[in-house]
């Protein structure tokens, strides 16, 4: 009789053990705010790099920079980004001197959380130059 009672106790302990594992596992599912923030910046970074890579793949980016065609560059970037995204593009030469004398942007920032992409753009024309293109992105919350 005493032995039977002991076995019941063991089952209760096992149940409690399983229940605690379940509860602890569920805690792991709660997404931490840091990883959410990181993935948000990663998404913005990927979008920015994709835009610049697409523009650079056929030499358009370096050609527009060489010709100081900032308005067309702004329109190109704007047409490739979602409407809800704010952007600001700055072009530097190899000595980090800013080249664009007019802002290449679609307005004022919509959020304090700004992701910046720095892209090395090599010119494909015979007149070789390397530009560093900084694209800042933010999304409305």
């Amino acid at each position, binding site marked *: 009789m005493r032995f039977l009672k002991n076995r019941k106790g063991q089952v209760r302990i096992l149940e409690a053990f399983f229940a605690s*594992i379940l509860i602890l*596992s569920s805690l792991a599912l709660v997404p931490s705010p840091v990883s959410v923030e990181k993935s948000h910046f990663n998404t913005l970074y990927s979008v920015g790099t994709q835009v610049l890579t697409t523009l650079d793949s056929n030499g358009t980016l370096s050609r527009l920079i060489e010709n100081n065609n900032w308005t067309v560059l702004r329109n190109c970037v704007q047409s490739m980004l979602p409407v809800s995204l704010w952007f600001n593009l700055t072009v530097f030469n190899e000595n980090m001197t800013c080249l664009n004398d007019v802002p290449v942007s679609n307005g004022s920032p919509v959020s304090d959380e700004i992701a910046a992409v720095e892209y090395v753009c090599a010119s494909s024309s015979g007149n070789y130059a390397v530009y560093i293109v900084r694209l800042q992105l933010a999304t409305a919350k």
Partner: protein
Amino acid sequence: MERKRLNRKNSGQTLIITSLVVALLLLSVVYYIFEVERKSVIQTTTPLNSYVLAIKLGSRNTVISALANVSNGGENEILTANLDRLSSIIGNQSHFGKCNLLFTPLNSSPYQSGIWISWDSNGLGVSSAYANFSLDFTGMQADVQLEYDVNITTTLNVEGVYSKLEDVKKQVNVTCRVFNEGEPALAKNITLFYESDGDLSIQEWIPVDSPSITDYGNGTYFISFIAETKTSNDPMLVSARVHDLRDIFVQANATCTET
């Protein structure tokens, strides 16, 4: 006594079912956590992939630029000089970690310092640049070691036929085919010349004035014009000079066959 035995049996079954349910729940939770973790890893490596892609694109553009320069009269060493500049700038960037771009211009025949220019008189012209790259990236996310090569080649193929007209006049039809890396490509401009007497010992190339050009849109150009050589029996030598859309220059000479 009978009811007690029955209760005990039921209790055992319930325990088995409960343990099965708990086991299934645990498995599903573990699987879900695994999936979430996997998704998170994919998200964190995406920016690095984009960064590597941008570096590969930069090295390709640099080789194109050098070939455009050399094919238009620049020095072969410009390829190494430009790649040095790019490598230095990339080395100074540190978005995700330390990046080191090494390069080796191809030096085996027919390439010299990564450049091969062959503008022959057999109807084939080649302007090409080739470099091997090694990208070493050391960062918090990952360590990447990547080797790739960049081969930029513009090829021009020229074929021509002619028929004699009155006196020294000849009706000449020339077909030019432009290729970028072996694929048909468009030309930015084509200039055609013919030799005044078909003798290359003293070359006197006469530019073709307002020829009739048919652009087939697939890198093939059919050019028709009337030439006047010194004598009616002079062979017809033509020279096509082409800039492709990347500003790479290529030239090919060909002897037209009489029809």
